[in-house]
């Protein structure tokens, strides 16, 4: 069974992400890895901080632009549905994501979008690995543990 989904919105969003990453590389010479930005802000080194805050602020702005300006204004744009409050999943998931991405040096943006774009073998291994454990985890949580989280 396949869920109802909007392939055009998905593709368009993905293309925007790709363009964003290209801009960062072409002008600022940097890989767009969100986890990397977070890690550098958690343990900052002087003089190399601001642009990361600015990027993240922009990211929030882009999200807000969509949800609060585009969605009300344009027919066919759907607001992001609410997700049931799941504090244990959020805390546990967040801790492991923070820990794991610091170990691996990247996430879906760093290794996925940029790493694959660079044809990096390290990133390919990373992507296959995290997709693999992601899939197994969801299977275990949803189908073996009956959605315990």
């Amino acid at each position, binding site marked *: 069974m*396949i*869920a109802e989904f*909007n392939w055009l919105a*998905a593709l*368009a*969003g993905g*293309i*925007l*992400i*790709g*363009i*964003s990453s*290209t801009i960062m590389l072409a*002008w600022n010479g940097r890989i767009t890895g969100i986890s990397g930005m*977070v*890690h550098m802000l*958690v*343990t900052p*080194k002087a*003089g190399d901080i601001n*642009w990361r805050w600015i990027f993240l602020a*922009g*990211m*929030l702005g*882009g*999200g807000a632009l969509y949800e*609060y300006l585009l969605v009300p204004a344009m027919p066919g744009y759907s607001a992001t549905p*609410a*997700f049931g*409050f799941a504090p244990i*999943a*959020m*805390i546990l*998931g*967040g*801790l*492991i994501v*923070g*820990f*794991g991405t610091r170990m*691996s*040096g990247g996430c*879906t*943006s760093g290794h*996925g*979008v*940029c790493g*694959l*774009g660079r044809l990096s073998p*390290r990133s390919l*291994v*990373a992507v296959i*690995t*995290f997709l693999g*454990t992601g*899939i*197994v*985890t969801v*299977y275990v949580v*949803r189908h073996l543990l009956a959605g315990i989280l």
Partner: protein
Amino acid sequence: MKQNITALVAGLLFGLGLAISQMIDPARVLGFLDVAGVWDPTLIFVLGGAVGVTVVAFRFVLRQQNPFLALTFRLPNKTEIDRPLILGSALFGIGWGISGYCPGPGITALVLGSWNSVLFVIALAVGSFLYSRFMDPTANQQSFNEPVSESL
């Protein structure tokens, strides 16, 4: 200064892309990872669209000697496929599968005003700090080729 403007514009496009593609909805992401359930292909189209752009555009960009504003390209210089890469990625996938969030969407979802993303982002920062403090303080600090001097 100009690099900050670039970061702002790029961030805006990134957040817009995440929201339009519904990647800030954990249900969609979990639906993709849920291969045994009602499968949601959305993420494939998002990643496909993004990598479709970067795999072509990065080629052209990296042919340049230098970026337009910064002094040099700062690219990861590790080549070895080592245990931290694999183990870290495995852990990342587990955390992703538990929460339905990865860093970008988790942060962007803050604009939706739900406590979920707040908890996620705080935990993300704590997890990062714990790794740095107890495992490897050099991780994710600098493994890029550093320019001699830089104007920001």
